[in-house]
């Protein structure tokens, strides 16, 4: 449990928006992470890179909790390709795998990494790769290498090139607060402001292709759902009904948006066709129905309702309208998100009066509590279902934290300014 505390100031490339750069702190490690050495990459004469590629790869793998990178100080050599590797040296350091690589500039404006992953025990090259990006995206190049290595060694698709949406609130004197909708790489780097406002911003969410986002904004002093194109920056107001307009959720095919409206009295779940703007009411109950999330097949939704007296998760079939309760453990289950395989939920679960993030196995109907602090909320799952992000409190501030789906690894991403909340992990973006 008490493995290592590593604090790394995530570099913010988009310096103009250094609003809330995140600090990563790993506070809980896995029992048996794979020892791996990421040797600093060599480079062709004349190639200057602003980022330490190997160090980014190292942090990526470390944050996954499944790897224990060897510290550079302990390395006995700096090989740049497989032929320069003395396996015996690495074996004596207890390392299972070694990554070596070289950076080149095949043409102006392009940065290329040629790298090899070596198995120290069998003394063989298990992966040879070559990736290139435009030279202003060295971090992306590093994350690509991380993805390939992670995938090779775990058989799970890497999610290091994904991004993160979150909302920050910064007090600005008096009663004024500035709200910002931010986007960053998954390690907190490359943070940029997508929208800012003096009124609250809530519930940001990604479209399945990662090209659009939707969120609730109070900019017109009433809640309304907006959709924003990440490429063009164009915003479109989807709803402005009387009462609640909340919890937007894109359907898996991206053509529809589930949402919660209270225009007819109590909050109910609706689905809007994004092309035509037509609305279809999905639930109709005098209790509160809210926080819809799609199942992967797009044929049913889950939502939170207190129709049974206490908030619990229900599932509704879109074609029949049939509603079925699916959580039975605990007196409070809410804000559920579906794992990519559809077999599990992550949700906010209350036990012994404390709110935690938990995973519910839908087949075996088992609940596992993943987080230990008191007020954990808004879980959002990585597209490869290896980790999830959530909002919590630390040192009296709203911070984001991540935990692996088996509870074995945890790290915090505290912001340096203001409160950060409502994280949304993007889908795979490439």
């Amino acid at each position: 449990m008490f493995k290592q505390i590593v604090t790394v100031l995530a570099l913010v490339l988009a310096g103009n928006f250094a609003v809330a750069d995140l600090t990563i702190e790993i506070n809980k490690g896995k029992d048996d992470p794979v020892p791996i050495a990421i040797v600093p990459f060599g480079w062709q004469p004349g190639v200057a890179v602003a980022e330490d590629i190997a160090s980014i790869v190292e942090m990526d793998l470390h944050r996954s909790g499944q790897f224990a990178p060897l510290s550079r100080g302990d390395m006995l050599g700096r090989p740049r390709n497989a032929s320069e590797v003395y396996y015996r040296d690495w074996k004596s350091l207890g390392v299972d795998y070694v990554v070596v690589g070289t950076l080149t500039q095949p043409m102006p404006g392009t940065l290329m990494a040629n790298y090899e992953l070596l198995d120290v025990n069998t003394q063989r090259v298990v992966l040879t790769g070559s990736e290139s990006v435009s030279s202003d995206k060295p971090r992306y190049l590093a994350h690509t290498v991380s993805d390939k290595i992670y995938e090779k060694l775990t058989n799970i698709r890497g999610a290091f090139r994904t991004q993160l949406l979150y909302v920050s609130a910064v007090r600005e004197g008096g009663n004024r607060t500035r709200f910002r909708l931010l986007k960053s790489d998954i390690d907190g780097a490359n943070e940029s402001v997508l929208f800012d406002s003096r009124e609250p911003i809530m519930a940001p969410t990604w479209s399945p292709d990662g090209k659009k986002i939707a969120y609730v904004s109070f900019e017109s002093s009433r809640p309304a759902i907006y959709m924003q194109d990440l490429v063009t920056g164009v915003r479109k107001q989807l709803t402005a009904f009387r009462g609640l307009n909340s919890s937007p959720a894109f359907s898996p095919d991206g053509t529809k948006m589930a949402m919660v409206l209270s225009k007819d009295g109590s909050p109910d779940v609706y689905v809007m066709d994004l092309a035509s703007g037509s609305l279809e009411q999905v639930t109709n109950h005098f209790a509160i129905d809210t926080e819809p999330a799609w199942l992967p097949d797009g044929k049913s939704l889950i939502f939170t309702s207190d129709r049974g007296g206490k908030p619990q998760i229900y599932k509704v079939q879109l074609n029949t309208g049939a509603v079925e309760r699916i959580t039975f453990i605990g007196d409070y289950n809410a804000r559920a998100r579906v794992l990519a395989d559809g077999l599990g939920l992550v949700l906010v679960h209350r036990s012994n009066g404390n709110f935690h993030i938990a995973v519910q196995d839908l087949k075996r109907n088992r609940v596992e509590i993943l987080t230990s602090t008191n007020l954990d909320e808004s879980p959002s799952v990585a597209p490869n279902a290896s980790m999830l992000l959530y909002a919590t409190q630390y040192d009296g501030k709203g911070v984001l934290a991540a935990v692996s789906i088996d509870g074995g690894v945890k790290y915090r991403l505290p912001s340096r300014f203001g409160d950060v909340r409502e994280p949304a992990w993007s889908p795979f973006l490439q």
Partner: protein
Amino acid sequence: MQFTKPLFLLLPAACLSAQLWAQAPVVDMNSPRQAAESGRSMQGEIYQQLQQLRQEMMALRGIVEEQEHQISQLKQQGLDRYIDLDRRLGSLTTGAAGAVVGSSGATTDTTIDAESGEMLSGSESPTVSAPSPVIASPSVSGPAPAVASAGNDSSDYTDAYALVRSGSYDQAITAFLAYVERYPSGRYTPNAWYWLGELYVAVKPQNLKGATEAFQYLLSKYPDHDKVPAAMYKLGTVYFLNGNKQKSQELLTHVIDRYGSTGNSAVNKSREFLRKNF
């Protein structure tokens, strides 16, 4: 957005005043004003009753849902039991009774002899007090517990660890004891000992003796394991809880001296503990 119930909290409050109105005796129905008021109070009363009915219905709905769920679980359990029984009967009649053995036969001897008495190089080591068979005994007496195990090192450990995560500490202790018994040199045996140490402190009532022995065993048997710094730190805190402040201080100081350069989190924790308590 966070799930709240503001709507329903507001509505009954609004009706409360209406209810008070209703209690005022209404006599003169000829007065149009009073008639209007009585109509309004009637409306209020009906509204309030409607709210009560709604809440009652929601509570009942909750109970029905839960009972429905329990019934379907019971049905499934009944079926599972029947299938299990049928399988056992079947194997009995075919004479292959031996196929359904429990795990009791495979008990390995877990008497712990702290063979390498020297635990901490250099400084005066906290004595590893001879063999400590007590560790295995608190909840497991005699033969191994009849835990139906899949017989897989990794999955047994994961199952035991899952019990820690779900907060079932007593069961976790039983599971880890079973684990170290079944896999005396398993891949996760040191980790299991570590967790036993932690769990003995976490359970109520605490079993500090058990915790001490589990940590000491881990330290003596696996001096190079990853968990050693953490175990030393924990053992230091257990000594402290036991009132053995000198040993506690010695051990925590040793953690800082020995692992200070590695950046292991046990170092900072030891420092903090010393600062707070000494």
